[in-house]
């Protein structure tokens, strides 16, 4: 790269989040709308840090009942049996399919937790104005965005188990309240990752002038 590193915001330009057209904003306060696709323009996503904190905190709260409450209730003539997410993992492990058990453990327990920790780390480093390892932090953000959807795995496992095992009066499976909280964790962490603006990671190294706040 020969040209000096300069961001669009430093050059007084704004990049459309939808079609990626770089254009001159209508004003520093109100950049207006993208001339090509009509999307509302923003130098940085408005209220990104606050929204991300709020969504991630809500997800962290839901993570507790998601793991403590049963996701599936198996009802047989002998009685009923409640399974939590970890119970499902242990069932898969003891029934001999440890690769599947590992997959569900990673998707349902480790990924949501890892995402929450990563998002908190990104927010804290942005707020403290860190300029270190920006490239690695951006990569971490991209991993968080990419991997988030796989946490939905357990919701789909529960859905199709419930859909198939309806053999009343022999045996039936009903969804528990845990699945609702678990789905909430996944959706909230995905929304948190979407609302975080990765460009904030680089703004400490490349501060820009416009009056428009972060």
């Amino acid at each position, binding site marked *: 790269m020969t040209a000096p590193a300069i961001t*669009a915001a430093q050059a007084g330009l704004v990049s459309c989040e939808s079609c990626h057209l770089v254009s001159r904003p209508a004003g520093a306060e109100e950049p207006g709308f993208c001339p090509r696709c009509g*999307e509302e323009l923003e130098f940085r996503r408005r209220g990104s840090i606050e929204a991300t904190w709020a969504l991630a905190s809500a997800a962290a709260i839901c993570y507790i009942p998601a793991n403590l409450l049963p996701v599936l209730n198996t009802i047989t003539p002998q009685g009923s049996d409640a399974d939590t997410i970890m119970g499902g993992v242990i069932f898969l492990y003891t029934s001999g399919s440890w690769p599947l058990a590992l997959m569900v453990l990673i998707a349902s327990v480790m990924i949501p937790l890892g995402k929450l920790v990563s998002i908190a780390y990104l927010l804290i480093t942005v707020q403290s104005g860190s300029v270190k390892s920006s490239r690695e932090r951006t990569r971490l953000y991209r991993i968080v965005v990419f991997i988030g959807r796989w946490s939905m795995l357990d919701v789909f496992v529960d859905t199709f188990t419930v859909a198939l095992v309806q053999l009343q009066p022999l045996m039936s499976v009903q969804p528990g309240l845990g699945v609702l909280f678990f789905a909430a964790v996944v959706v909230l962490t995905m929304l948190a990752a979407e609302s975080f603006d*990765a460009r904030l990671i680089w703004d400490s190294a490349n501060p820009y002038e416009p009056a428009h706040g972060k």
Partner: protein
Amino acid sequence: MKFSESVACPDCDLLQHIPPLDPGRKAACARCGRLLAKQPSGSRDLPLALTVTAAIALIIADTLPLMDLHVVGRFASTTIPGGAYEMWLQGQLLVSVLVLFCAVIAPAGYVLFMLVLLLAARRTPVPHWAAEMLRWLGHLQVWSMLEVVMLGVLVALTKIAQLATVDPGIGMYGFGATILLIPAIMTNFDRREVWQKVAWGDGEMPSRAAPAAPVARGRK
């Protein structure tokens, strides 16, 4: 079609110039490594052919049984929408809607929008409503989780296989085909080219020589 353009990296806002790319080549951000542009190597009609195939496969996947279950003379089967419906019947309304959205509505919307967009993009300039669809495609892509659904179905099958005989149904083949076709559409679809040809919001088509930083409009 080859062209060069100036972009700001969506992840770090660095301004940079993307040179004309040869087919199959990619451009990544010089600072943070984010993929900025790629030039598909296939024929320009390939995405359309793939999308039509995906539409057929998706109809099969959503309407025919995914799996059949036999246990002591009892028989049960389910489809993808059937799974969401059973969750609704069992009182998990929000989860049911979420499953329906991620497993049925978002993938179907993605394929349908892509089909209409590709047909519209054969015209120059590309009509402005097609640009709206391209914007929506990005959102649908995030929530379309067919590959995760497939893994979920497989795990559920493994769990149930302990108790009953489970056979994959015809829907499963359509489902598998769709999962392979959607990423193939994504890699072969040239969204940059469509954006270059699209009619702008005010109905004007900018000349190819227009500067990368056009005159801004005020509020609508």
